[in-house]
C-alpha cells in the first residue's frame, strides 16, 4: 500500500485537529482536538519510519504516546479544577484575563 495515503490521512487529521482547536469552545473538546493532532503526528512518524525502513520513527511514536498521556493527566487536572470552579468548561467563559 502506498505510504503517501497515510501521510495524507495524517495531514488531514492534523488539520482537523488544528481547526477544532481554533473553532471549538469547550475546553475538553479543544483538548481532544490537540490529542488528535498528536496522533496525526504519530501516524506520520510511523509512516515515515516505514518509508525509511528505520525504527526511530516508531520510537518517537512511543514517546509521543507517553507525552500525550502526561498531557492528558495535567490537562484533565487543570480543566476539572476550572470546571469545578466555574461549572463550565467553555473557553469563552474563562474571560477574566481578556485583554
Amino acid at each position, binding site marked *: *500500500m502506498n505510504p503517501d495515503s497515510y501521510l495524507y490521512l495524517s495531514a488531514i487529521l492534523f488539520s482537523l485537529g488544528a481547526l477544532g482547536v481554533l473553532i471549538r469552545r469547550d475546553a475538553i473538546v479543544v483538548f481532544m482536538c490537540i490529542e488528535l493532532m498528536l496522533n496525526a503526528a504519530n501516524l506520520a512518524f510511523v509512516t515515515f519510519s516505514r518509508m525509511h525502513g528505520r525504527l526511530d520513527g516508531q520510537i518517537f511514536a512511543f514517546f509521543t*504516546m507517553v507525552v500525550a*498521556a502526561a498531557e*492528558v*493527566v495535567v490537562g484533565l487536572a487543570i480543566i*476539572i479544577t476550572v470546571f*469545578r470552579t466555574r461549572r463550565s468548561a467553555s473557553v469563552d467563559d474563562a474571560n477574566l484575563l481578556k485583554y
Partner: protein
Amino acid sequence: MDTYVPILALGLIAAAFAIFSVVIGSLTGPKRYNRAKLDSYECGIEPTPQPVGGGRFPVKYYLTAMLFIVFDIEIVFLYPWAVAFDALGWFGLAEMVLFVLTVLVAYAYVWRRGGLDWD
C-alpha cells in the same frame, strides 16, 4: 494488510448480527405508550430532573482515569522490553528497574496522599 482480512470478516458477521438484533428488537416488540414507562428509572419515584449525562461526576473517577493512563503507559514500555528482554541483558534490566522505580515513586506519592482511597 491480508492479515486483517479475517478479523474484518468476523467483524462484518458480528456487526450484521448485532445490527440485525437491534433493528429486529425494535420491530418485533409491542409498542404501548406510557409516559411513566419512558421516564428514567429511579426506583419508582419521580425522577430528579437533570441534564443528559447526569451533570458532574465525582472527581475520583477522573483521578482513577489519570492513574490508569500513567500505568498503561508504563505497560506500553514494558511490553516491548519484555519481548526483547533476552537480547537486552543487564542493560535492559537496569534501565527498566530505574523506570519502574520512577513510576513507583509517583505511585507511592499518590498512595500516601490518599489518591487511592475511595471514600
